[in-house]
């Protein structure tokens, strides 16, 4: 039984419409995420040596965690490593501009903070930096979202977002979960 030329073209057009529809739907979802959730690619390129990350400088263990500078800028430095975050609990103030800086000494990790648009990869050799304002207080889960090895599924940290009145830096400007 022969199929007419016209029938073939109609069938092709139908399937073309379906695939255009699927692609358009995905594009609309991306546009929605870009406009409503402010999802955008990271724009900070800052190299750092992963082999000596722990030896000196910004990301030594003693220097990690939340710190308020003399100008009042809140910065939290966090290391993602196989298979833990250091520190594992991070205190941050609500409704205030904060900067999160991440680095890793070993493999590619990634983080997202649940319920917010904070989402970045953490690549060895680079500092990942995110500026944000947390509008809700409470404990937010921050899991590793880039497969990093056998312990990946047990790798997460907690962000404790507290009202500005409860955010009390010590004499060095540091704030940690243990202190509260």
């Amino acid at each position, binding site marked *: 039984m022969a199929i007419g*030329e*016209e029938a073939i*073209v109609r069938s092709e057009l139908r399937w073309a419409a379906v695939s255009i529809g699927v692609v358009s739907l995905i594009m609309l979802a991306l*546009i929605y995420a*870009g*406009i409503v959730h*402010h999802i*955008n690619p*990271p*724009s*900070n*390129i*800052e190299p750092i040596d992963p*082999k*000596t990350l*722990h*030896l*000196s*400088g*910004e990301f*030594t*263990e*003693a*220097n990690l965690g939340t710190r308020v*500078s003399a100008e009042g*800028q809140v*910065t939290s430095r966090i*290391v993602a*490593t*196989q*298979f*833990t975050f*250091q520190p*594992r609990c991070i205190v941050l103030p609500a409704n205030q501009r904060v*900067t999160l*800086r991440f680095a890793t*000494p*070993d493999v590619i990790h990634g983080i997202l903070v649940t319920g917010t648009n904070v989402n970045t990869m953490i690549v060895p050799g680079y*500092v990942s*930096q995110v*500026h944000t304002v947390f509008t809700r207080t409470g404990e937010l889960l921050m899991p590793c979202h880039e497969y990093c*090895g*056998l*312990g990946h*599924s*047990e*790798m*997460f940290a907690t962000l404790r977002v507290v009202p500005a009145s409860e955010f009390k830096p010590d004499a060095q400007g540091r704030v940690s979960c243990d202190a509260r």
Partner: protein
Amino acid sequence: MSTDPLDRPWRLWASVAILSVFVFSVLFGFVLLPIIQGRGAGLDAFESICRALGLRPGSPAAPQPASEAKAQPTTRVAWSAELMQALDRPSAIGAQLAAACTACHGKDGRSVDPKLYPDLAGQSAVALYKQLNDFKSGSRLSAVMAPLAQPLSEEQIVAVSAHFAAFPVRSLPPAQMPAPSEAIERLVARGDPTRAIAACNACHGEQSGGPPEAPRLTHQGAQYLSAQLRAFKSGERRNDIYSRMRNVAAVLSDSEIEGLAGFYSTTFTY
């Protein structure tokens, strides 16, 4: 062969469609979205378009304060490919130096008293190198090991680590092997996601792909292993890079520590 008349309008409209999608993407991605997103970050339209096009650098890192923090007391060890290769080659110097270790760690790296001293036979050379270095720098405290490690040079530490790593592990009599409890086996193989405990295997398993300095735990005395876990838990021992071990030990219960130490002291595998 004549051109099919049905094809002609189709080709025209396909080109128009592709071109308009392209124009829309360029306008949306480089103009519209940067303006909308830039407004939230306090950037004017021109600046945000320039940044989207890559003509201006994206948000530069705020100047970071110079930090005085040094690695003490964590560790001073850093890994490199050359060091890893050197640790793979046992040498005659290593055998000579090892004479100083035999009183406690035994002639072939098999401890004379596994309760107190770990077996060195078959241990990873990378782990041995890091511990010797940490004893030397004071990152890991030991009244016995510190004076022995301090006079060693970098090359000597590499040699003696490679020497002991080359010995075969001690054989365990099968009669000593009780069946491990299910909960302990789960911690070793699966970890505990609710407490953020990665499986022991994720780092200490053979060829696990975890941190290179993670030591082999099998064939060690249960008392030695539980003493180390308790020291990590209390923070008395803190030479693990970025609290990898302290974070885990901190949430282990005392019975789990005993169970894990028992498991590793009586198992061949892992």
